[in-house]
Each structure stands twice: as C-alpha cells, then as structure tokens.
C-alpha cells in the first residue's frame, strides 16, 4: 500500500540558510499535517492543510511557512535556520471519515550547523 513519502531523508544546513521539506500524502487523503520532533521529545504540531487550505496552526515559528499544492503534496519552507531547528520533521496524512487514523512518513532529519 502507498505510504506517506517525505524528501529528503536527511538535510544538513548552515545557520541562516533556508530549507524546503517535501511531503507526498497517501493518495486521496485530504489532510496533511507537519510535526517537529526534537531529540528525546514528543512530536509537536506545526501546521495542517485540509483540501489545500490551511486548517490548523500550531507552534510554527514565523520563519517557517507551508503550503499544499494542487496535486496535494505539501512543502514546509524554513528560513533563517537556527541551531534549535535541528530535529526530525514528520508529515502525516489522513482522510476525514476514514477511521484508521493518521499515517506518518519516514521523516526528514534536519541538522543545522
């Protein structure tokens, strides 16, 4: 079965640089979520999109932005990177009304040096 695809798997950036993470949800899933997980921490919700419109916003810094495109893939754009942005970034997708929950991608490990 198709899963949630994230790219890249690993990314190393310097402070103040910009990074773009991509997420391809499960086909026909209508909602995409972005989470950030620091070392030893629980996943923290950043932002979500339902049918290409922003639906919920969590603790996403102003330096970050995201969008969902017409083909339903989503991108998380991160600018002016800081050392504290180093984390695992997960994308998840779900389908309203489908009761099997949320499927997470393999994540992107971002390291800011």
């Amino acid at each position: 079965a198709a899963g949630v695809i994230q790219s890249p798997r690993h990314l190393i950036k310097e402070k103040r640089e910009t990074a773009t993470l991509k997420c391809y949800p499960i086909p026909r899933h209508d909602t995409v979520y972005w989470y950030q997980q620091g070392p030893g921490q629980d996943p923290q919700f950043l932002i979500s999109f339902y049918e290409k419109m922003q639906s919920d916003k969590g603790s996403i810094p102003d330096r970050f932005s995201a969008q969902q495109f017409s083909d339903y893939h989503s991108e998380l754009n991160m600018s002016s990177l800081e050392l504290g942005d180093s984390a695992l970034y997960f994308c998840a997708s779900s389908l309203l009304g489908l009761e099997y929950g949320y499927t997470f991608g393999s994540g992107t490990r971002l390291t800011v040096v």
Partner: protein
Amino acid sequence: ELKVEQNPLFLSMQEGKNYTIYCNYSTTSDRLYWYRQDPGKSLESLFVLLSNGAVKQEGRLMASLDTKARLSTLHITAAVHDLSATYFCAVDPYSGNTPLVFGKGTRLSVIA
C-alpha cells in the same frame, strides 16, 4: 488546552514480565491512538481506539480506552527484547481529522 499525560516516562522491565503504560487526557475526545517509535525512525501506528470501552490486541500488546475516565492503557504481556522502543499515545481533540496531541512518550527497555 488539551493535555496528554503518559506514565511512566521511562520503563525498564525484564523479559517475560507484564506491565501497563497509562495515558490520561484532559478532553472529552473518544479517539485515541498508540504509536511505536524506534530511535530515529518514524511513528508506527499500533492501535486506533475510537469508542468508549474499545479494546484491541496485537501480539503481546493490548490497548484499551475508557472515555469517561479519560484514560487509555497499553498493557504489555510477557515482554520480549523486540518491544524495546518509545511508545506514544496521541489524542484527536475534536474527534475528527484534527491535529493529534501527543503524550511525552514512554521509553521502554526490555532486558534479559
């Protein structure tokens, strides 16, 4: 604001023993999820609990949900080393396709 509390946060148990991880939450949601995470890896869905009294079992793991008490449990039976991982419970606060709120996770280590 929804709070999800797990305990214990760290658990070291011997192979063959039984133990229970608890997940309390502060909203009236009836949708709770359990995930497993190995170090540096993704979140693997274990159980989806969608109603009061729901009980699901898979191998040595059994999860239950009591929405009145706002409590879910993950019971481990006869632990084996392969179960060593971090286990997260997560709640859908509005019971329908809304962002999950996670507990802090329980880091389980099963030792011989």
